[in-house]
């Protein structure tokens, strides 16, 4: 059984390698499909056994690096190993299942693309990396696969890297002709967007590495045997009080533990697009929509949440408060921006960012309040309905000749009823209406945030404690508003632009089947096995129980919090839906409060601030400073021939060295002139010197 874990991981890798080697001109999808089906089948088998027994399954593991005692460091080892616990089992099912669905859908969506088989090759590579994160049994291996999903994401964002930037793309300019503002102004070309995503993630990963280092240090101080970074050993180290034994630069062990947690969480912030590192995700929408559906909506961006859940037992209360606040700020910032976006995928992108913020609020609320379980539940329900929304978007974009402007859609429900139904269900789910999946998971998050706030306000500032809850409630209202706006403008009303929508049609049979299968999962019943919206203790709740002993709050307190949150959230959801339906029933309306509108349409000026700080400030100004030392790579290369021979700079020093040795060489080279007579002269001279030396 445990060897099966390896096969689950190896199948997509094999598909990637095979497709990379044979590079079929067309077709090739079957390689990926077979591998993913095998992976999914094996996952079903393994995951059901793990979920029914409740015991984690340890897979094959090998010591990657084993060092003996030396340099004052005790012997330790780092390993690469597979492990599947119940949380991982649910994640595994969702990753493999969604990957299979998306691949089937892509056979329709990507049909006729020039690089059809390359899509499936890169997609398989991404699946391999993602499964590596899910199955990894230690922090280091997680980091390795963490970077690999980054590569997979990079490859797929830039899939159409030949596409020009917006400013040079007449197609986009035409789209902008309608009164559209928002992400278009900052929209990048795919090749630029992929770099942006990669670089922004590096920022977070720097924190990840620092946190990983501190954890490794503490585990070494605890004198643990075996792989020091495995989940079990890390938890053991913290429980043993390993952090009391280390201190650094006046920072006590407990502060270091907080910093280590926040450090690893920084990595999660990058990958899960949390404020202030969220700006890459909307740009990542330049990739194929089906790739976005799984990478930038369902699984990869949720990997940050998954990692935070993995390190959850290691997080201190301070670190958890930090997680809560980051999540809350992300949720409200992204939700407010999504209200004014006009690009179908941009709305979904900001919605994803906002929902990821929700998950972080849940995890930040701690395990005792049920926040851990709630955050993970929302990860899973969100993965399904957001993937569905993106596949719906793919269907619409395909049907409407690559247009994405919701102002020019309208009345599509008649032309693509299956898509309208599926996305409609997903919208109702994300709005958090009763009997839909997010009603159960999102409201559990808000309830846990409320309980955590109560707990925290006893110890510290009231605003600091209640902020995440308030922002979460406000975001819930905004979420139902913008999602309904999106759906209403697209599917209801009259046809606004015949040129855009007259060809619209539902996708092929297989793609429609995928949409309908996924829309089943928008229902709460599928997740909890019960139609009672207030029921607790479902199989999923049990699968997602926090690791280690956690003292839960009493059942009655939890129930009370849940009931009041559910009533509140249902009202807010209804209000949001009602308002959006009323405002947008006839098409786009101009209700603009100029300053607010500008603020939101400019994405809270966060992208512009980053541009100003890093690109203009550090990049260009810093570049000038560096140019003083160095001639600057660009100008240097272009003026290599004409550049001054020697200048007082770093390049000057390098050039000078070369110049000096060159001159010295040519000077000495004159001795080697091939003239026998001068050689005889040198010999005589040397002889004379020798004699002189002997005599004196």
């Amino acid at each position, binding site marked *: 059984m445990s060897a099966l874990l390896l096969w689950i991981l190896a199948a997509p890798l094999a598909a990637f390698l095979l497709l990379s080697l044979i590079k079929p001109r067309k077709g090739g999808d079957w390689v990926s499909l077979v591998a993913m089906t095998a992976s999914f089948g094996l996952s079903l088998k393994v995951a059901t056994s793990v979920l029914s027994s409740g015991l984690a399954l340890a897979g094959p593991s090998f010591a990657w690096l084993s060092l003996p005692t030396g340099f004052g460091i005790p012997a330790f080892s780092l390993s690469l190993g597979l492990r599947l616990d119940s949380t991982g089992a649910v994640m595994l099912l969702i990753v493999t299942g969604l990957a299979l669905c998306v691949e089937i859908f892509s056979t329709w969506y990507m049909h006729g693309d020039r690089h059809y088989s390359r899509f499936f090759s890169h997609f398989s590579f991404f699946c391999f990396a993602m499964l590596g994160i899910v199955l990894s049994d230690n922090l280091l291996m997680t980091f390795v696969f963490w970077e690999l999903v980054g590569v997979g994401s990079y490859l797929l964002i830039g899939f159409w890297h030949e596409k020009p930037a917006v400013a040079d793309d007449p197609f986009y300019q035409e789209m902008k002709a309608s009164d559209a503002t928002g992400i278009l102004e900052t929209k990048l070309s795919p090749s630029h967007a992929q770099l942006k995503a990669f670089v922004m993630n590096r920022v977070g990963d720097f924190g990840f590495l620092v946190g990983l280092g501190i954890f490794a240090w503490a585990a070494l101080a605890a004198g643990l045997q075996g792989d020091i970074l495995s989940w079990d050993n890390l938890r053991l180290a913290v429980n043993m009080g390993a952090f009391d034994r280390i201190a650094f630069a006046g920072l006590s062990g407990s502060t270091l533990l907080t910093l280590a947690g926040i450090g690893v969480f920084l990595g999660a912030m990058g990958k899960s697009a949390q404020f202030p590192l969220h700006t890459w995700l909307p740009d990542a929408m330049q990739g194929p929509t089906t790739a976005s559906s799984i990478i930038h909506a369902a699984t990869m961006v949720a990997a940050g949440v998954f990692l935070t859940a993995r390190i959850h037992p290691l997080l201190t209360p301070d670190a958890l408060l930090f997680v809560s606040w980051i999540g809350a700020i992300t949720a409200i910032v992204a939700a407010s921006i999504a209200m004014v976006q006009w690009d179908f995928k941009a709305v979904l992108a900001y919605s994803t960012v906002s929902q990821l913020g929700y998950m972080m609020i849940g995890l930040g609320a701690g395990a005792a309040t049920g926040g851990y379980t709630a955050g993970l539940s929302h990860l899973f329900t969100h993965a399904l309905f957001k993937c569905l929304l993106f596949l719906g978007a793919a269907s619409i974009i395909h049907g409407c000749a690559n247009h994405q402007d919701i102002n020019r859609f309208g009345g599509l429900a008649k032309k693509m009823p299956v898509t309208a139904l599926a996305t409609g269900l997903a919208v109702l789910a994300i709005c958090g209406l009763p009997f839909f999946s997010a009603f159960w998971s999102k409201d559990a998050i808000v309830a846990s945030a409320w309980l955590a706030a109560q707990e925290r306000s006893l110890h510290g500032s009231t605003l600091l404690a209640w902020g995440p809850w308030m922002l979460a409630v406000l975001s819930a209202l905004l979420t139902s508003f913008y999602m309904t706006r999106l759906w209403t403008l697209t599917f209801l009303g009259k046809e606004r632009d015949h040129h855009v929508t007259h060809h619209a049609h539902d996708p092929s049979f297989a793609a429609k089947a995928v949409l309908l299968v996924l829309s089943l999962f928008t229902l709460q019943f599928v997740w909890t096995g019960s139609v009672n919206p207030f029921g607790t203790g479902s199989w999923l709740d049990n699968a997602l129980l926090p690791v280690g002993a956690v003292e839960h709050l009493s059942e009655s307190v939890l129930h009370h919090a849940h009931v009041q949150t559910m009533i509140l959230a249902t009202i807010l959801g209804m209000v949001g839906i009602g308002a959006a339906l009323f405002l947008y029933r006839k098409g786009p309306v101009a209700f603009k409060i100029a300053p607010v509108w500008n603020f939101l349409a400019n994405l809270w000026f966060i992208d512009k601030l980053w541009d100003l700080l890093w690109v203009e400030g550090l990049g260009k100004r810093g570049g000038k400073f560096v140019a003083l030392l160095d001639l600057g790579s660009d100008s240097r290369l272009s003026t290599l021939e004409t550049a001054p021979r020697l200048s007082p700079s770093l390049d000057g020093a390098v050039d000078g060295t070369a110049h000096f040795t060159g001159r010295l060489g040519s000077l000495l*080279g*004159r001795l*080697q*002139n*091939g*003239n*026998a*007579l001068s050689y*005889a*002269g040198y010999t*005589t001279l040397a002889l004379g010197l020798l004699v002189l030396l002997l005599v004196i």
Partner: protein
Amino acid sequence: MTSLLLSGPDRLLPYLLVSAVLFAAGILACTTRRNAVGYLMGIELMLNAAALNFVAYGRFRGLEASGHGQVFSLFVIVLAAAEAAVALALVYSVYRTFRDVDLDQTTTLGSKR
């Protein structure tokens, strides 16, 4: 003193002086003669200067009965003969290549002056 050295039982110095003159003449020939054959003659002169030194030292400073000095001189003479044969062959080869034995002209390395 000088006359004693020149005329006494230990008459080494005159031999050394002759040898030194021979050697200097050889070096002069090697550094100034542009003709390869003249160059070879210079080498012969230097070899003979060294041989003369061997004999002189063997006679006046070493054990005369052993004859070491003379033996070394014989070696030098044989070596010089062999060297002359090889060197003349080289010079002939150079002449065939360059149609010249002027050492200034027979170079392919560096800039020609």
